[in-house]
């Protein structure tokens, strides 16, 4: 994809025979025209992933989208449009692009290595038609002039060749070096990303304040790893969430925006190790044992003490409620299959409660200024024995009967009708959600992208240019010096180089004509 103007030609028809066809296909693939088309395909192929919800970031919205579009949803799903960046057609585009890139960079590297070893070609016979041409006389003999020019150019780090009555010099090889480094670094970047995807893993976990987490697969709410990761071999650290602090904007137009959240944790880097107190904030992850622990979310866990008909306590823990909007209107579920009779409670937690005729109960501010829980209690078959996996945040009420609806403030107790039990809103805890990630590809990716950046800057800012000097005696016996140059990179100005050359000549005090 880095071929120059000369390599571009009209595509001939493919020749007969397999070998001929392959050669033809390879030439086509590595041509700049195809590289350009592939670049555009890559840009266009990226667009759907920014418009449609993606499984990688928001699987719930993907399901909603498919449900709301019964015609297009399943079709687009089959074509991978909800996993664009993992779809085979997306991979096809970038892999072809990278093959094209390699097919272009390899031969170009050979050419460049040869150019680095060779001397600049001889000066053209006539310089007067070339860019930056100047002519002047010099008091010295031609040999002296040539010698001093060649020395001066070498001292200024030009690559110099000389011959009978001429000096040729070239500079700016770093331009092509940078160009090649840039493209090779892009390949390295792709390999780094792939390496990270194969050997990296990430998981999410919700931890209630006062409880802990240890890094084993079973403790995660969700976990995903590369194909070459052994999930039984995660780094054996653990931590407890001691305190979670959060503050919200109370004034101004951005009322309710978060202003601070941070988690105070105690970390055990390896089992039995000395515990360390740490604070995890957004932008300040905890690094432990090759993994990084990020604070990604938080919410409320109302403490709901549930008693069954016999008066036994079947739950006395904080129950994780998931926030549904920016003001932390949260939903959660208590399932008590062991209660007699079995109980299920759906709840809506409002940190600052308000009730609206249209919207029903909702929260007006994310801090617990006036908390309330709106609940719907059920009894019957919770469906836990059916073998179908259930979300802990959803109650399947298909085989249950409703006991009633109630709203509770902290300290309130609701006794269910017909003596089936009771529930007490005993208090409020907080929880924080963490993402724990290990990506061994990120350092190589960073190094590759930095190299790419350096290469790119060299390839754009270094000017590749040649200058020539011809010296001869004219009819009067004066030494005539002619200089000219050639800019080998696009859109650059040769003037400074010719000026430099003239300065070198001036060091030998030539007489200007």
């Amino acid at each position, binding site marked *: 994809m880095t071929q120059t103007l000369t390599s571009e030609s009209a595509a001939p028809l493919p020749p007969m025979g397999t070998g001929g066809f392959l050669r033809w296909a390879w030439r086509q693939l590595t041509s700049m025209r195809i590289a350009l088309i592939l670049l555009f395909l890559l840009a266009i192929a*990226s667009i759907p992933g920014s418009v449609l919800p993606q499984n990688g970031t928001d699987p719930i919205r993907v399901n909603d989208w498919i449900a709301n579009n019964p015609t297009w949803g399943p079709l687009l799903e089959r074509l991978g449009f909800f996993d664009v960046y993992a779809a085979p057609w997306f991979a096809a585009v970038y892999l072809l692009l990278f093959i094209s890139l390699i097919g272009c960079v390899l031969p170009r590297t050979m050419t460049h290595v040869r150019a680095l070893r060779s001397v600049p070609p001889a000066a053209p016979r006539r310089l007067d038609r070339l860019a930056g*041409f100047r002519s002047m006389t010099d008091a010295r003999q031609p040999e002296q002039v040539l010698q001093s020019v060649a020395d001066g150019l070498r001292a200024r780090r030009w690559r110099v060749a000389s011959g009978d009555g001429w000096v040729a010099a070239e500079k700016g090889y770093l331009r092509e070096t940078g160009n090649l480094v840039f493209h090779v670094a892009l390949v390295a970047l792709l390999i780094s990303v792939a390496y990270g995807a194969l050997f990296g893993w990430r998981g999410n976990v919700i931890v209630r304040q006062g409880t802990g987490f240890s890094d084993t697969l079973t403790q995660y709410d969700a976990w995903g790893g590369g194909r070459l990761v052994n999930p039984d071999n995660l780094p054996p650290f653990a931590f407890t969430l001691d305190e979670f602090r959060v503050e919200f904007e109370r004034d101004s137009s951005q009322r309710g925006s978060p202003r601070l959240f941070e988690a105070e944790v105690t970390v055990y880097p390896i089992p039995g190790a000395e515990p360390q107190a740490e604070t995890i904030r957004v932008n300040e992850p905890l690094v432990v044992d090759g993994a990084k622990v990020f604070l990604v979310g938080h919410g409320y866990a109302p403490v709901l003490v549930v008693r069954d008909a016999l008066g036994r306590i079947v739950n006395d823990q904080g129950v994780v409620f998931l926030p549904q909007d920016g003001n932390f209107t949260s939903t959660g579920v208590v399932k008590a299959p062991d209660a007699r009779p079995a109980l299920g409670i759906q709840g809506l937690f409002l940190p600052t409660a308000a009730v609206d005729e249209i919207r029903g109960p909702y929260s007006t501010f994310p801090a617990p200024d006036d908390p309330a829980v709106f609940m719907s209690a059920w009894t019957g078959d919770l469906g836990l024995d059916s073998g179908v996996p259930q979300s802990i945040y959803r109650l399947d009420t298909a085989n249950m009967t409703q006991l009633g609806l109630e709203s509770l403030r902290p300290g309130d107790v609701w006794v269910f009708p017909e003596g089936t039990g009771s529930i007490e809103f005993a208090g409020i805890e907080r929880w924080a959600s963490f993402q724990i990630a290990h990506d061994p590809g990120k350092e190589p990716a960073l190094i590759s992208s930095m190299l790419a950046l350096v290469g790119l800057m060299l390839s754009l800012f270094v000017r590749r240019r040649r200058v020539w000097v011809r010296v001869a005696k004219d009819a009067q016996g004066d030494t005539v010096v002619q200089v000219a140059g050639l800019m080998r990179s696009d859109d650059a100005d040769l003037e400074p180089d010719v000026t430099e050359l003239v300065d070198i000549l001036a060091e030998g005090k030539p007489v200007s004509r």
Partner: protein
Amino acid sequence: MSATTLAQWSNMAVYSAMFVLIMALMAFAAGFASRGRRVGLSAATPQAVPVGVGAGGPDSTFDDPSAAGDHAVNAQPEPGRRASNVGMSLTWLATGLLLMGVVLRGVWAERVPWGNMYEFSLTMSLGILVVFLVVSLRRDVRWLGLPVVGITLLSLGLAVTVLYTEAAQLVPALKSWWLVIHVSAAVICAGAFTVSTLITVLYLWRDRAERRDAVRGMVAKLPDAARLDTLAYRIIAFAFPLWTFAVISGAIWAENAWGRYWGWDPKETWAFITWVVYAGYLHARATAGWRGRRAAYISILGFVSLMVNYFGVNLFVNSLHSYSGM
């Protein structure tokens, strides 16, 4: 000074800048519309330079506007020149006022002024003006004044009417040094890409006139198409590595804040698309059959994707980067 006073001063500075820009716009328009030969630039660059040691050939008119300008004023006063000069001075003044507005906004909010879309737009407008003025120090770009001031006014107008947000503290996700590094790089790029796009549009206009042999009237005031093309290229060649850096620094920040350096968030995706399209532009310029007009169209596409990223993703798409404050 109390916070409210600071806020008023900031808004006052922005409104003053807009007022001055409107006057600059009128001055540039007057300079552009006046009849006569085009301003400033000499058309032809002689192939061979007359004998002489040191710099100062005719080509330096292109690089040294001050000397060339003075010379031209003395030699042949051209219609519209004075008006354009007034426009340039007013643009400097407006840039100073806008800089004051942005700085005061930051002082008022006690943070870098890049917390919401109003502030991004203010800074981006400043970026456009600064890129234009920096270029104007090196060459005569008075012909570019009208579109640059026009688009800056458009951007500022949107900022003060549609996007205005009271200053507030940053959400925790934005509290990072990477905000300064990442956003400043992105904002300068946006300014540079805007200026290069304006030049590209002028290039297409001028190029069409040259092809039809109809270089008359206002189009005659522009430099020749080859020069417009080169200038647009140089600005993009400056902005493209910076954009690359903005994307890389964004990735480093994302790794630190969200646990992954690349997640195909819509903002990231469109930054990537913009990068790919401008990469396509740079390649197209080196490909026969693609240089010139086709490459110009590609760079305009790159700018379109930049705008989709700014307005589309900030306002209409559910993104981790939804910091518009609206």
